[in-house]
């Protein structure tokens, strides 16, 4: 059922809080998880690159 904007105003403040928190929360979670896993991958890649170059130097 579509509600008119007037009806939306009648939403309890609590509901608005939930929705706003959900939206901001989801964005924060997505971005944080991606950034964190990216940084981890970068660290591992740096180590791997150093190791590979080191072994290459030895070979």
């Amino acid at each position, binding site marked *: 059922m579509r509600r008119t904007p007037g009806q939306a105003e009648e939403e309890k403040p609590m509901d608005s809080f939930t929705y706003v928190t959900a939206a901001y929360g989801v964005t924060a979670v997505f971005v944080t998880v991606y950034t964190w896993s990216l940084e981890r991958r970068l660290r591992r890649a740096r180590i791997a690159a150093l190791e590979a170059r080191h072994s290459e130097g030895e*070979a």
Partner: protein
Amino acid sequence: MTVVRLGRIAGVVAVPLVAIGLYLGLFWAPEDAMMGQVQRIMYVHFPSWIAVGLAYLVGFVCSVVYLVRRNPKFDYMAQAGVEVGVLFNATGLVTGSIWGRPTWGVWWTWDPRLTTTAIMLVIFVGYLLVRAFLDDPDARARVGALVAIMGFVTVPIVYFSVRWWRTLHQIQSSPNTVDHNMVVALRVMMVAFAAGACYLMSRRYEVARLEALVEGLEYAPDTGAGGGGKAHG
């Protein structure tokens, strides 16, 4: 590497901007006359699209340049652009759906703009999936670039088709952004997201570059190294 340096600057800029933007959007800017507090979702929903547009544009341009020049750096950047674009595309869709629920009563309304972004997400996830199936880095880069190019140029057509498809049945509504404070908060968040996207793209670029380096070294003929683990594109 200038990409890494610029990325770091972007990251340093992004963090305080996000903090300021969050304060402005959640507390300082006034409540919307019609939609109430729920409209504050706008400060995190609209800026996503700035990040998406920027990232996919980077993906597209670098794909074109890669095809012509074959410099692998452009492939790394294209990949970074698409991946970061997909991230913000997803957040935009989810926040859009969450916003729609109290506003329209349903989680999904086939709104032209949201629907277009849903199709964009599918197109560019397709890019990532195709790449996952290609082992040869050159083929991966080339096929990826072609998918990105065809996908990107289709977006305007997708948008118009969906818009015409829907405008007979629904009026598109935008929240009232005439209020000056709202505009300020929105602009701050848009710059924050754009900077954040640049930072993430630079990091992803670096990951791609290093993993390619390791891959190249691992398969170098004289190397006795066991390598630091399998690299993926």
